[in-house]
Structures are given as C-alpha cells and as structure tokens.
C-alpha cells in the first residue's frame, strides 16, 4: 500500500539527469512526493508544509545533481532534516541525587501509560541499576490499580497503592513520601488516562504536578496517532509542562509521524520507545531511525542491534571455526535458528530491512514451518544430527513419526542441510556463491 519514498522520488527525478539540470520545478515535483509520504505517515499538515519548505530550500541550494543519483540525494536531505527536527541524539532523564527521582506519566486513555510505567521501572532497574518503584494513581479506570500491581510484580518492582477510594493527588503525595522513607532511587507515578479537553481532569493533572514536584513529566503517545497528536501535545504541554515523550506501540506498522508532530510543536524530545508485548521491549529513542521509518526506509540499525544482543562474540567465533572445518552439524543449525527466532517474529525482522517492508505487503512468514524443522531435528539421535548421511529409509520414517511430519519433510531438510554445508564450504574458501545457488536451496 505504501511505496517507499525513495522509489517515488526516484520516479519523480528520473529524467533530471538526462536533461542535466535540476530546476525548481523538479524539486517542487519531488516535494509533492515528500509531502504525500509525510501525510501518509500522519505527520501534522502544518508541520509538513513548513518542513517541505525548509527541505526545498536546502535541496535547491545543494549540488543535488553532482551526485550520481539525485533521487537518493533528496531522500538523504529529507531524512537528515527529519532526524534533526526530531532532536539529534537521544537525551536522558533528569535524575535526582539523592533520590527518589519522581517521574510523572500522563497521556490519553489507551495510549499505553500503565504498561509504559512498568516497562520504564524495569528499564531503570536493569539499565541504570536503580531501585525503582511504582505509584498507582489511576483510580478511575476499572481495575487499573490491579493491572499496575500485577505488572509491578512481573517487573520485580515495588508498587505503592491505596486502592481507588482516595483522591489520586493524595495517593501520589503519600507514595512520594513512602518512596523517600524507603530510600528508593526512583518513583514512577501512573495516572489515569484523560482527554486533553477534559478541564476537570487536566486541572487534576496540574495538581499532581504541583504536589508531587516531579523531576520529569513524561507524555505517553501512541505511535498510531493521527493529526490530532498536535492538539493533544499542546494541551498537555500547557497543563503539565511535560519534559519528554514515550512513544508506544512502535512494534506495529504505523509510520509514527506523530513523533515528528509532537516534537515540532512542543520542542520536547522523545526519550523512549515501547516496541512490544514483553516488559523488556522498551528502549531509548533514536531520532535517525525514526526518520527512516517515517520515510519507509527500513531500520538496519535496530536489526543489527537485535542481532548483537542475541549472538555473543564467542559463539560467533566458534561458529566460524566450525564452518571453516566443516564441523557444522544440525545441532549448530538448531542453535542458530533459535537465536534468530529470539530476535522476534521473523515478520518483524524482515520489516526492518530496507525495501523488504514494502515488498512483503501481506505476505506472511509461516513461523510454524520453523517449528516443524525444529521438531524434525529434535527427533534425531545425536549421531544423526552430527552426520545426517547415516539417515536411511527406516530412520527417516522414525524421525517423521517422532516429529509428526512426513518422510518427505525429513528428506527435504537433510537435502537442504547438505546443500547449505556445500555453500558454506565455498564461502569459507573465499568464493561467493551465486545467487542461483543460494536461492536453489530446495
């Protein structure tokens, strides 16, 4: 549905080189594509206008034509500008010494505040070694306190709660005093979701801010938010004067233009990104990556980082040695497969690759196919895994029965593995296999 902006710009600027001169008209044509891409990404209309005007100036002022590829050059300018608007390198929270650092979380209903609170608490504990606690001040949404208590237990942090009978401002004040007494390093205050136009609840948020004197106020924003993000951010900035933003639900396929809008109208940085169902799916925000995402250009850095987190150096070296000596067995294959799968659903990984996200469209990666491969290998004896050539007809039948698959599936796996080994041998000798060989795995 969405074409990559780079492809569109390519098309718009295709004939430029043959004419040898980049005119203002060419740039305007390109800017129309940029404008559409940004609108599809939900960047605010007004922000888009200002942004394209700025980019146009820069594109005209540069020797775009000098480069071999004017389309790519314009994409680069756009992506650089986007990253610049979203605020250079990430920024940290303001930590109070001595503690507790009080962090107030606010946002619309359903933006993901409660989950973000627990994730942030876990993040502070894991990444900063802090003793973080939570305060349950959402007394309005049914069972919100229960939810925070359960999430707190999962995150392994203490939760200060007094049920739903008291005024949330009183509870917050009490929790801050308790956290001080208990010498916590940080206290994250969960508040109920509120509409930015709800005067009463916005007044209450102002009170919460006044009475808890937080060191940081964070606005939680759903990455799927549309044009309204600007209204929301402006109102919350006025009432709660927030310091930064947590962008949630980034594991979906929303381009997340709201991030740009919020930053552009309030000037507040986006500090964290929430990227999945697990409490550990929470990370520092990277403006440059977000810029590429908004433009539909994939996110290679995140992919590389995910890989780094899963594969440790020593294992990688061991693997390399095995490949060189041709000792790579089905057991190693199994370990490899598990590591890749630990990085998340394959679908999501593929989406991070430039160009693939678009091509993938509605094509689905069948994770169950991988389950089947695992089952087949696990049904083999250690001897069979080390040396698949011993697998004869009767072993095949046994393995198929054991793994709940067919004899054909077992044969195919063995065949693929043998071919893979052959390729590895070629590669370790320094020969790059041809694409046909790689693709002809089956």
């Amino acid at each position, binding site marked *: 549905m969405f074409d990559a902006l780079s492809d569109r710009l390519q098309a718009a600027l295709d004939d430029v080189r043959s004419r040898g001169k980049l005119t203002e008209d060419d740039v305007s044509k390109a800017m129309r594509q940029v404008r559409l891409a940004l609108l599809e990404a*939900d960047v605010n209309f007004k922000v888009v206008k200002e942004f394209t005007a700025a980019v146009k100036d820069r594109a005209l002022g540069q020797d775009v034509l000098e480069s071999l590829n004017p389309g790519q050059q314009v994409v680069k300018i756009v992506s650089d500008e986007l990253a610049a608007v979203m605020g250079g390198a990430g920024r940290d929270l303001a930590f109070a010494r001595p503690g507790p650092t009080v962090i107030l979380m606010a946002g619309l209903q359903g933006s993901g505040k409660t989950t973000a609170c627990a994730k942030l608490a876990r993040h502070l504990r894991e990444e900063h070694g802090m003793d973080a606690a939570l305060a349950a001040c959402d007394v309005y*949404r049914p*069972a919100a306190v229960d*939810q925070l208590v359960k999430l707190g237990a999962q995150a392994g942090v203490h939760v200060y709660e007094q049920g739903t009978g008291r005024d949330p401002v009183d509870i917050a004040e009490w929790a801050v005093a308790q956290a001080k007494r208990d010498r916590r390093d940080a206290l994250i205050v969960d508040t109920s979701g509120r509409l930015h136009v709800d005067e009463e609840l916005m007044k209450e948020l102002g009170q919460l801010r006044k009475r808890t004197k937080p060191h940081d106020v964070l606005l939680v924003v*759903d990455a799927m938010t549309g*044009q*309204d993000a600007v209204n929301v951010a402006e109102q919350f900035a006025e009432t709660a004067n927030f310091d930064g933003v947590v962008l949630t639900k980034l594991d979906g396929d*929303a381009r997340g233009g709201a991030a740009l809008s919020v930053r552009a109208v309030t000037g507040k940085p986006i500090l964290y990104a929430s990227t999945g169902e697990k409490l550990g799916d929470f990370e520092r925000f990277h403006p440059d990556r977000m810029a590429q995402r908004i433009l539909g250009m994939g996110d290679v850095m995140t992919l590389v980082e995910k890989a780094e987190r899963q594969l440790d150096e020593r294992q990688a070296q061991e693997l390399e040695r095995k490949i060189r000596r041709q000792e790579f067995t089905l057991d190693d294959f199994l370990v490899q497969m598990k590591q890749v799968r630990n990085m998340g659903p394959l679908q999501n990984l593929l989406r991070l690759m430039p160009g693939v996200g678009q091509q993938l469209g*509605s094509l689905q990666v069948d994770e169950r196919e991988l389950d089947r491969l695992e089952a087949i290998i696990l049904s083999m004896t250690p001897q069979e895994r080390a040396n698949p050539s011993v697998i004869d007809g009767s072993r095949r039948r046994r393995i198929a029965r054991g793994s709940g698959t067919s004899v054909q599936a077992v044969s195919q796996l063995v065949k693929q593995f043998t071919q893979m080994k052959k390729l590895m041998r070629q590669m370790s000798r320094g020969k790059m296999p041809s694409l046909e060989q790689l693709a002809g795995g089956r």
Partner: protein
Amino acid sequence: MARTWHELFDTGDDVPPVPAEAEEEPKRRGFFQRLRDNMVKTRQALGAELQATVFQSLDDEAFEHLEETLIYADVGAPTTAKIVERLETEAETGELQGGEDLSRRLRELLAETARVNGDRISLTERPTVMLIVGVNGSGKTTTIGKIAWHLQRELGRSVLIAAGDTFRAAAAEQLALWAERAGCDIVRGEPGSDPGAVIFDAIAAARARGRDVVICDTAGRLHTQQHLMDELRKVRKVISAQVPGAPHETLLTIDATTGQNGLRQAMLFREAVDVTGIALTKLDGTAKGGIALAIAQELGVPVKLIGIGERLEDLRPFDPDDFARAILEP
C-alpha cells in the same frame, strides 16, 4: 440510517412504535449537541478556517482549505483527493454555484462515503454471538460494557460477557466491573488460559442459562503480530464450530485519534476474522475519526457504533449525516 438503537439493531421483533417526530428531534439534537459541545472545548483554528472559506467562494483557495480540513480530520490523502477531485469537476461543469453549494455537496459526499450497506446488527439468532477485536488501547473493554448495558436496557436482551482477554493483567477484573454496571453475567477463565476455551465455556453457559446475546472480549493485539492474529483466527473457529453461522457480528474497535494506520488495522483484522463493522471510539476529544471514511471507502466496512464519552450511555449508533457534519463543523 441508524439513529436509534432499534434502528441499528435488527431484533426480529415487530418494530416498536416509532416515537413521534416531535419527540425524536430534541433527543437527536441533544446527542449531537453533546458531541459538538465535546468537540468545541478546545477550539483550534482549523474549523474556523473552513467555515470562512467554504461559505464564501469557489476558488482555488477554497479547495485548498477544504483539502486541509479533510487531512486534519485524518481522512487521508487518497480519499481526500477523490472527494476534492469530484467537487472540482462539479464546480467546473457549473453544478456548484458558490461557497454554499460547495459545503452542502461536501457534506453530502462525506455522508455518502461513510454510508455502507449492511450497517445494522442482527440479534435474531439465539444466542447471537458478537466478537470484539482491536489493537491495544482502542477501547474494546469499555465498548463491550456499554453495548451490554444498552442491549439490556434499551432492547431488553439478556447479555452474557465472555472475558476472552486472558493476557493483559487485570483485564478480566476490568470487564467484571463493567458487567456489574450493566447488570449482566460474565464468564471468566484463569489468567493466561486459552481464550478459545473461555469463550467456548461462555457460549455453553449462555445456552444453558438461555441468554440472548454473548459478547466476546479478546486481548488487544497489534495487527502485525502474526501469532496473535492466528490466535484470533482460532478463537473465531472455535465460535463457529460451536454455533453454526457465528460470530454473527465481528466488531473492530478503532480509536478516533488513529491516523492512517487505521486502514491497515481494518485490512488485517478483516483478513483474519472477517470484520463486519467498526466501533469508532473516543470521539469526544478533538479527533474527528476521519480514518473511518477511508475504511468505508477502501474496504466497504461500515461504522456501526461511536463512543463519545466515559459514561455507560456514551455509546451511540453511527449516523453518516451527523458524522459528516461533525467532521466539517467547528
């Protein structure tokens, strides 16, 4: 056009006496007034801009502002382009004679786009099974509570809620409180248990107790999470194996603040569980929910319900004309 609860829901009963027009009118205006009041609270320049241009002229500037208004309402570039193009053609051929004509036709076109066939909800089966799906935080649980309350109160149907969200912490507790407010039954499972099993038990219980409607909650999930969408497919299969022809209604909740991603949500949820209608929630903010127009236009899935506040009665049948007016009026 669905306006009253009786008009939205096909109960199979004889249609109750339609209230006289005189009585009907103030009630409708009351609701619309409320919706508008809610939207008026923070007045941004956008509405005022449209008012200023549309009512004045038919020039390029008018069309530019018109486009701007639709984009701001999250209608999206493709659907906006289609509407603007059509109006431009009509202006060129002289069908439109000025600013007033333009705004009238625009309102008509928006309502036309929003109006999709099959926008009623049938309750003629016993039990009628409704499945509610949507991304995290879109308002499933709240919407279920409100539907249950209305079905019990307005239409006199006995409702049983199936707490199929066994994943999110305290989701069942939240739903139980809504069930209590609505005064209906609820069937819950253990946290982390199989949602299909919980819903199976709930439908069995509804049959045993002779309940009219079963509303099935499901855990919020992003449409890109393949394994969770597969789980949803399975839940649907469990339901249709148990009750042939069920679920009779599959509602997707979409947060009105959602931008262009709403279209992707509708596409992928429809692919997985054959969504039959949209519940557009949180329309009481400043968001206009224009993505519903793109969904109607591109996918032909009608909006059936709108959520306009936190109270039980703040759920309404969707009305295309009111919606078109709300998108344009400041």
